[in-house]
């Protein structure tokens, strides 16, 4: 890394996260408000590490009931059938649309889990002051940010199946409690990704650079 790698914070400058204006606050401790858009200025997002940990722990707790509890309950004359996310995937596979089964499996089961693992990995490496594979970790964070919304897929599937199959008394589909937990996982991981500050990934290598000077 070259010595002219200077961050805005080291130069006493702060980037407004709302409008992207770079400005020089009068006081380092209290950067105050952006002169252009009036948003509060911070060098780093407030309590990013604690907030992100809290949110992913909450999401991990919800992940279990989301996968165990039924998301849909189908009642036909006399019989009641409960579907979890996994059994929904199996059902799609059995009826011949294996590519849709794969999409649902990836979006509903693998992406939320991968997001939790990825964010925990980023938090642990940041807290340990790691300076290795910074670029890969930055790329991982951007991927987590981009991909999170697709986990919402199963919530929409349940919503529209429930909305259409209301042919009482012949057949009706009711939403199960699993949907609520599943939606909670998706929302919590999206908010968790937003509360993490990717600049923290680079701060430890920057600190090392300062010591070398």
């Amino acid at each position: 890394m070259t010595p002219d790698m200077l961050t805005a914070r080291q130069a006493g400058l702060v980037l407004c996260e709302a409008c992207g204006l770079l400005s020089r606050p009068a006081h380092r401790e209290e950067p105050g408000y952006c002169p252009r858009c009036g948003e509060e200025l911070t060098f780093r997002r407030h309590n990013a590490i604690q907030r992100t940990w809290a949110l992913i722990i909450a999401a991990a707790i919800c992940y279990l009931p989301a996968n165990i509890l039924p998301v849909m309950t189908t009642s036909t004359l006399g019989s009641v059938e409960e579907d979890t996310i996994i059994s929904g995937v199996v059902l799609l596979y059995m009826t011949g649309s294996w590519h849709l089964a794969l999409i649902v499996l990836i979006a509903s089961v693998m992406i939320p889990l991968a997001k939790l693992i990825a964010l925990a990995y980023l938090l642990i490496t940041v807290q340990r002051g790691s300076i290795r594979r910074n670029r890969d970790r930055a790329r991982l964070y951007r991927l987590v940010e981009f991909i999170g919304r697709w986990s919402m897929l199963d919530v929409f599937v349940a919503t529209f199946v429930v909305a259409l199959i209301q042919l009482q008394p012949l057949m009706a589909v009711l939403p199960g409690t699993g949907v609520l937990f599943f939606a909670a996982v998706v929302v919590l991981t999206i908010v968790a990704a937003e509360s993490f500050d990717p600049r923290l990934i680079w701060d430890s290598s920057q600190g090392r650079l300062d010591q070398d000077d």
Partner: protein
Amino acid sequence: MAKSRERDPVTSLPENLIACPDCDLLQRIPSLRPGGKARCPRCGKVVAVHKPDSLDRTLALTVTAAIAFIVANVMPLMGLSAVGRTASTTIIGGAQEMWAQGERITALLVGFCVVVAPAVQIGFMLAVLLAVRRFPAPSWAGTLLRWSEIHQPWAMVEVMMLGVLVSLVKIAELAEVIPGIGMFAVGALIFLLAAMTVVFDPEEVWERVRWANSEGPRASASMDEAGGEEATR
């Protein structure tokens, strides 16, 4: 690097100096060709894109998106017929049925992600683009732009579309499914929303907005506009 400790927090800085939003590295933006991109040399984040004629192109797309959004919400999304009975649903009808079945929080979340968030994103963007046709634009244009951007990650029209397709396959074995006009409007809307984010350059709006501290915008912003090309000295 300007080391001066002047009172003005901004004008002492070189105009093309920026900090990478993902790694905080200070860097200068080179002058870009139309369509050209600049990436952060350290973390690879795209830090600048020269988008020619951004405001007018985005306005055209936003107006079209608003029309597609209205059609998508008014017309039925899909219908089905089974054992001599028919049913159909609109987008909001899905959320309503969830509410009626007792899953109220999920219903509100679905309503927010497929109706409220896209409506705010499109509606506020439209207001911003109309407001910045005047120079300097009122500072509320900046506030609305911020609101539009906050809602963007929660506007999940394309995820909903995939969810609708999956539910169609699930239902197809139970009943005959008829795609509605709303479905085609949603398809158009997905394309238009994606095109809006590709074409839109928020910096062009911020350059025209009256500053919160009532000192800006800098006069050079209006000159950039007249010159068309990125001014490099």
